């Protein structure tokens, strides 16, 4: 197939997913509300001292963003599976690989990107020093894209099961660990005025690896889930 065909296919899937989400606001707003609420729990649990919160903020923000992305990833293929759109995707003559990439990127635009845009606000609430804000946004934007791809593998494997939610977190969380390590360490390095570009570069490496390899696993997993 010509490259123009593939790119118009990607654009079509992206547009469809984004407009479907725009009509049903909860899909993109729920992870954000979750992010804000859970971040607000930490001062209540740990105590309101600004110094202590500032020290823990990079870790808290990253872990909560990771959980929000995890919860959101259950819905990547759920709706399409329920109304059999997914089956049509598999049966159509269009290649599956670019469609899967488009769906995952749409999911990232609806979950990871808003999280990253909202994160400075929560950084302020948790007394994260201003020096860390840029690294927080950049690492979340890049890291959540990797999380979306990994999460989509889990979502594709569990989409045919009635109770996917908890199982999805069990199989996906161990795979999230490298992203968490490099993401939160980028923020910490920025707060301590150290170099944080190496960590961002590593997240970039993970993103490229995920972009190239994860769709293979997602396609395989979708075929299994739809076949059964």
């Amino acid at each position, binding site marked *: 197939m010509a490259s123009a065909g593939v790119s118009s296919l990607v654009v079509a899937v992206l547009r469809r997913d984004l407009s479907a989400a725009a009509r049903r606001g909860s899909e993109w707003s729920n992870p954000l509300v979750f992010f804000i609420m859970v971040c607000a729990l930490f001062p209540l649990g740990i105590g309101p001292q600004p110094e202590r919160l500032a020290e823990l903020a990079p870790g808290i923000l990253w872990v909560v963003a990771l959980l929000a992305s995890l919860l959101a990833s259950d819905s990547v293929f759920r709706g399409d599976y329920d109304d059999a759109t997914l089956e049509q995707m598999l049966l159509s003559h269009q290649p599956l690989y670019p469609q899967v990439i488009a769906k995952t990127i749409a999911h990232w635009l609806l979950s990871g990107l808003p999280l990253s845009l909202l994160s400075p606000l929560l950084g302020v609430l948790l007394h994260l020093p201003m020096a860390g804000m840029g690294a927080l946004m950049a690492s979340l934007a890049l890291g959540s894209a990797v999380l979306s791809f990994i999460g989509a*593998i889990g979502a594709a*494997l*569990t989409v*045919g*099961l009635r*109770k996917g939610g908890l*199982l999805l977190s*069990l*199989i*996906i*969380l*161990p*795979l999230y*660990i*490298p992203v968490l*390590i*490099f993401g939160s*360490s980028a923020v910490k390095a920025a707060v301590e005025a150290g170099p944080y570009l190496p960590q961002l570069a590593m997240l970039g490496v*993970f993103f490229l690896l995920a972009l190239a*390899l994860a769709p293979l*696993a997602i396609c*395989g*997993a979708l075929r*299994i*889930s739809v*076949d*059964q």
Partner: protein
Amino acid sequence: MSIWTTFHKWGSPRWFYQFSGRLLPYLAGLSLLLLIGGAVWGLALVPADYKQGNSFRIIYIHVPASAVAMGAYMTMAIAGAIHLIWRMKLAAMVMKAIAPIGASLTFLALLTGAVWGKPTWGTWWVWDARITSVLILFFLYLGVMALHQAFDNRDAAAKACAVLVIVGAVNIPIIYWSVEWWYSLHQPASIRFIGESTIHPSMLRPLMATLSGMYLFFAWAMLLFTRAEILDRERNTRWVQDLVCGVQEQGVK
């Protein structure tokens, strides 16, 4: 015999059941001999460590369990790949059989590590790079088992698990390396299990015995679990019914 005939034969659960049945006594005998012999040798005959005293002796269980736990995951990933690529049902059964064994060995490694850590480091748990990686390996095993149980359809379960296991195998080096990096960033590597390659030959020999014993034990357990799975899956076939009803087996080809 061509390679395809061999391949075909290995794909036949019945043939595998009969073949593995002949292997079992050797594996069982040899692994028990090496494990018990190595343990007695290591626990009673080897001199105590000049620094750690007798507590170092847990190495004779800890190191074999950790090594085999990691090897088991790779075996499981290879079985998963064989199942996905060539649709070999036997590979799926092997894969399913390995998960609980690997998880148990990983748990044993973590437990003996904690027991060893208390007298040596003064604490049950340290967020050391290696310990953390083994903990994550344990989580990976649990994830595979949870996914397998969630499916009603056996074939879908096997394929889904195969995908997950392969994804995990691709990720294991990345996870290991990230944790290593994270650890060196967070705290100085002051704690070492044993000085680099300074283990005395008298201590090493029993370790080799228990290590190879543990590998054989893994193979033994894997065959037993796979055989149970074969019987369960093929329970409607004639040969399993004959086997269960005690009909005399014909000569094995």
